[in-house]
């Protein structure tokens, strides 16, 4: 089976600082892969390399069968991207935002209208199309941003902390949608800080200090280290992998272990 994402020895250096060192993983199509890890661990850098926006210093990666080094434009046309910033135009209405992104993905006339209608139906935006984005709540902005990323029927959806700062109900609605899309065959790469979200992924990658230190299904990973839940696993990895990390010392001082 063709892989949706195939990373081999991905390295990114900014000057002398190594942000990502030697990341390997493979995801088959139609699966949800979650990235977890502390802030600044390199999750966003890996994601940006896979989007074809940032060139890897070393290593290889293919996304949907296209090389990130040589065919970034092919990748860009086939992926949907959404970040925690919900990059929408506040002074445009929901409908106008959708129209703009449809145009950016070269959708025209009938096709554009049909796709827009599909997305509005899928996400339940019908009552909101004429509303200014500025007047929407965080949860609704998140849904509109997702809608903009889905207009061109991407084969791969990349979500960089899509639920940061969103209320629990909106998060639940959002994740139900993500699972539905995966069932329809879309591959999804998502980074998150919420362990309940991570638990529902098919694969999980733990990123720490620019490395992918653990990879597998959530159940396997918990079993491997004998932990009852992902929270404990997360803390275990931080303690285990970098005993000199200040975060780690703080945990020990708190007397949790």
């Amino acid at each position: 089976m063709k892989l949706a994402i195939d990373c081999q020895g991905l390295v990114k250096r900014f000057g002398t600082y190594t942000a990502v060192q030697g990341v390997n993983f493979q995801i088959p199509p139609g699966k949800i892969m979650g990235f977890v890890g502390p802030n600044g661990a390199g999750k966003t850098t890996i994601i940006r390399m896979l989007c074809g926006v940032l060139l890897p210093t070393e290593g290889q990666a293919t996304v949907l069968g296209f090389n990130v080094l040589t065919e970034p434009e092919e990748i860009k046309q086939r992926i949907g991207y959404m970040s925690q910033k919900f990059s929408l135009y506040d002074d445009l209405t929901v409908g106008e935002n959708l129209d703009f992104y449809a145009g950016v993905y070269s959708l025209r006339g009938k096709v554009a209208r049909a796709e827009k209608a599909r997305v509005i139906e899928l996400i339940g935006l019908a009552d909101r199309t004429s509303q200014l984005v500025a007047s929407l709540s965080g949860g609704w902005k998140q849904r509109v941003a997702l809608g903009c990323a889905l207009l061109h029927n991407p084969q791969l959806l990349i979500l960089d902390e899509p639920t940061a700062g969103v209320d629990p109900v909106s998060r639940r609605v959002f994740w139900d949608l993500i699972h539905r899309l995966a069932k329809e065959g879309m591959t999804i790469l998502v980074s998150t800080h919420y362990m309940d979200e991570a638990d529902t992924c098919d694969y999980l990658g733990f990123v720490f200090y620019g490395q992918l230190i653990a990879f597998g299904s959530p159940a396997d990973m918990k079993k491997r280290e004998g932990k009852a839940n992902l929270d404990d696993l997360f803390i275990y990895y931080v303690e285990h992998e970098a005993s000199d990390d200040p975060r780690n010392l703080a945990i020990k001082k708190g007397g949790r272990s």
Partner: protein
Amino acid sequence: MQRFVWVRFIAVLKKEFLHIRRDRASLIMAIAMPIAMLLIFGYAINTNVEHLPTAVWDQARTADSRELITSIRNTQYMDPDNFVQGYKEIEGLLDSGKARAAVIIPPDFGKKMKGMKQASVQVLVDGSDPTVARAVLSAVQMLGLNKSLELQSERIIALGTATGFEMPLNLETRVWYNPDMKSRVFNIPALIGLILQSVIAMLTSFSIVREKERGTMEQLVVTPIRPLELMLGKLLPYVVIGFVSMSLIMATGIFWFGVVPMGSVPLLFLLATLFLVTILAIGLLISSIASTQLQAMQMTFIMLLPSILLSGFIFPRETMPLFLHVLGGVLPLTYFLEIVRGIFLKGVGMEYLWQDTLILCAFAVVLLAIASKKFKKTLD
């Protein structure tokens, strides 16, 4: 009663200094800007008009005429170095702005001086800049008066009696282009350039910087959109706005202030479009450096000051020290002012404006190339 607590006050003080130290741009602006402003103002605001390029048509070629030219030079107001033959040449020099004044000495000048008659010399002054013209006029009149008194007393000594009540030397002055020497006629065409520059550069840079500020640029980067598509799509609306605002300013100038262009209006629009392209490139350049709208606004303001002072907008560039003269030469506005004033006041066409036009073209091409390269980088 509430007590003033020094510790709290010191904490705030310390924090503010830290802010200032971290914010290099503001620090530089706080220290360098006042010095730069003082230097620019001090040197550029020099209403003493000196060493204006002057054309001389000496038809007499006698010792007397040469002496007159020397005394004109000695006034320091004019540099009569450009010797020409005939009206056509004078007209050309004045039209192109290479000369700001012209002295025409008739063939019988020497004869009349020797024959104790009244000799007439014509002085033409470019009146487009009334400040300059007024200075030249008064200098010439003073010179004529002085010379006449000198001659008169010489003649009295020679003949024992005055030859008459006529002045021996008559310096006849004529003001060209703006005979009434209205400063409005001088300023309004130039305002077209200045207003266009400040407004359009600011709007263009805002429209792009806004995308960076809101994070939508980050989103656009991961879409298939190409830098050129984005750039042209963002710039074109401002070309339209620029045209509308240019037409409005011109219409206001013509119908409200009554400053009617002497030359071709289509040519004016054509060359103004060229200027507009240059301005858009500047806006683009600003947007590639600035990361917030506030920074973009500061940068347009930084550009505004030299544009007013050094481009010839208020003060004649001829009288500036060499350094400021050169500094004014790197502003596109300087050349557009030559063009817009040439067309409005002198009614000249491409035959005299081709140099300014070429320089403006060069500005447009170079700035656009740098700007689009920088813009591409922000996207990559």
